[in-house]
């Protein structure tokens, strides 16, 4: 999420464009053929420590409340709740998704005009920052190129450590 539990109106983006961004990032990291992407190391060791794209922060429940992750709208930092970080380090599926979701916010929703959606407003997915970040996370963790018809949902889960997108973070 970008700083609040509410959704934000983001610039309209097609799923094809979101998928292309996620695939390009995987490709740039030379991870095209790796099913279970090391998402924590990518965020912490590569993007933060090596490339210094943002500050990687971990904070406790007291500070984060119900937010599992948070991306600064200016792109200054990405922050995770401690239990989420520790779960992601241990390969936790939901936590890995949260990491990829925040990465989606970082690459798509920092330094762009965003407008807070009204609580009663149901945004179309292509305008919803949360839906876009979910889509990015799903594609980044489980790219179409690596999904084969010869695997079941269970074996995909094992290979990618990812569940289908469809939750709010």
């Amino acid at each position, binding site marked *: 999420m970008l700083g609040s539990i509410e959704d934000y109106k983001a610039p309209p983006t097609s799923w094809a464009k979101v998928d292309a961004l996620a695939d390009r990032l995987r490709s740039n990291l030379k991870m095209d053929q790796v099913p279970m992407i090391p998402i924590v190391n990518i965020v*912490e060791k590569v993007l933060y420590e090596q490339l210094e794209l943002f500050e990687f922060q*971990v904070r406790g429940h007291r500070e984060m409340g119900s937010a599992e992750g948070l991306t600064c709208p200016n792109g200054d930092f990405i922050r995770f709740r401690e239990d989420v970080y520790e779960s992601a380090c241990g390969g936790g599926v939901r936590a890995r998704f949260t990491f990829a979701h925040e990465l989606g916010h970082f690459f798509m929703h920092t330094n762009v005009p965003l407008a807070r959606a009204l609580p009663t407003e149901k945004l179309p997915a292509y305008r919803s920052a949360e839906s876009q970040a979910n889509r990015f996370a799903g594609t980044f963790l489980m790219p179409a190129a690596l999904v084969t018809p010869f695997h079941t949902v269970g074996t995909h889960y094992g290979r990618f450590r990812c569940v289908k997108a469809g939750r709010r973070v």
Partner: protein
Amino acid sequence: MPTTEIGKELRKLRIDEEERLIDMANRLDKSSSFVSAVETGGKAPPVGFEDLVISAYRLASDAALVLRKAADLSRKAFTIQPESDLGKEAIGLMARRMNSKMDALTSEELERILSILRKGDADVG
């Protein structure tokens, strides 16, 4: 990227040791949110934190000195913990004197004081 001097040192140490934040936190027996907050300037390093890092990572004297300096530069307040009432009175008086004096000292005078103190540290160590 880290906003504090201690943050730069912690990050460098982690890169050198090829550790993640969680590994450093486990090594220091602290929570990962605590180490992250110290690294990114959310918290000042508490008393003794640098000693913990020096001992956990077995830092040699040069590296230890750099870390101590970084920890001091990242602090806005310093804590002295006298045990007796006399000690508390003396420290209180000294702190008030130092507080008013320190701002009045020139950087040359402060440098001279630092060099005397560093020499003293070397004698002790």
